């Protein structure tokens, strides 16, 4: 789910900011990069629960 913020980027947004990443690398790294983004989101929200 997309969150509109300067501090949350989907992998597609991350990729757009890194044109040096080729297609093979992108496919390999997508779950991990998105996973860390979502883990940080979860942590930030937990600080307010």
């Amino acid at each position, binding site marked *: 789910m997309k969150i509109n913020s300067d501090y949350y980027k989907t992998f597609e947004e991350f990729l757009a900011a890194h044109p040096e990443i080729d297609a093979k690398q992108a496919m390999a790294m997508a779950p991990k990069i998105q996973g860390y983004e979502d883990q*940080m989101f979860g942590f930030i929200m937990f600080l307010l629960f």
Partner: protein
Amino acid sequence: MSDTLQLTQERNQLFYDVIEGKIPKRVPIAVTVPTEFAIQYAGEDLTETQWNNVKLEEIFDKICQDFVTDTIPVKALRFPSWYKILGSKNWVMSSGGFLQHPEVEGMAIEEYDDFIANPYNCILEKILPRLYVNLDKDATTKAMTLAKAFKAFFDEVGHARMVSAKLIQKYGYATVNLTAGFCEAPFDFVADQLRGFKGISTDVRRVPDKVEAASEAALPLMLKAGIPPVPSKYGSTFIPLHMAPYLRTKDFEKLYWPTFKKLVEGLAEAGMPSFLFAEQDWMRYLDHLEELPENTRIMFEYGDPKLAKEKIGKKHIILGFYPISLIKTGTKQQCLDKAKELIDILAPGGKYIFSFDKSPVTVDSINVENYQAVLEYVALNANY
């Protein structure tokens, strides 16, 4: 098949049947004690053990040995490390070793518009630095602090999850996870740590439109937080409900209910049922609760179990209502009689999971023998 694996399957089946609208062999039991209770029960030091988790498995194991349940009977939620690293003002350890949540105001009334315009930006730029003072520093210090806290959080939570998984396997508990996700009703999120109880109580009267818009703005964050990576109709997202009983019904209907309903519906559409803890007395909102997606799990603290069963018991799954205070003050027979009374009211037709109205916080807040006797009574007698 090992005995414990078979036990897990049998216990899972109790929950599957309840969730699928079938009559289970027996009323399933889902009760937990918090980490603080478990540490006290094991006779260990509260402060030291929460900072040094090497004894956690042994401590949790003792709870598993002594309390009969169908799901793992102890749950770890918070540890002090990341709160201390961040300089937390909203979770502070007392001299006795309890993490306490003082009344805080993370967001000033003048900041509603910032939050409404972009809640996640507002959280990171304004709210967190106010509640976590070590984030109110220069950019480098802030980055280092957040990195340490993030590491501490996942180390602690990861260890606790690993311990739980081992004990689930060792004792053959159900793998159904009633708290697989966690979020808050959008209004409660705005109230709890952003505006505080005092602030939100005033805002409801003075700036209701801002409260309504802030709850709408918080909804996408709560949805994202509440949907786990792998949703399951047998799991659920835990949502503790706080402020509704303190609102006038007309304020509830305008400010609380719309975004809360959208949240529960949104989670259900994503394949994740909600497990609501209806704190205080929700009896005047039963007709609203009836509107939520089928099979919402609702744990009640206070109220009339007959009325709840009558109004929502065919559609939703009911838990709670057993007064934990009776475990402290009642005789063993009175405690067993209360269990029988509630089972007679809530078990017919299924859709009932036994639990107390809340978890015991400390060992001396209950009579442990009564607690054990009630759990054994339900395990042996609540058969269909």
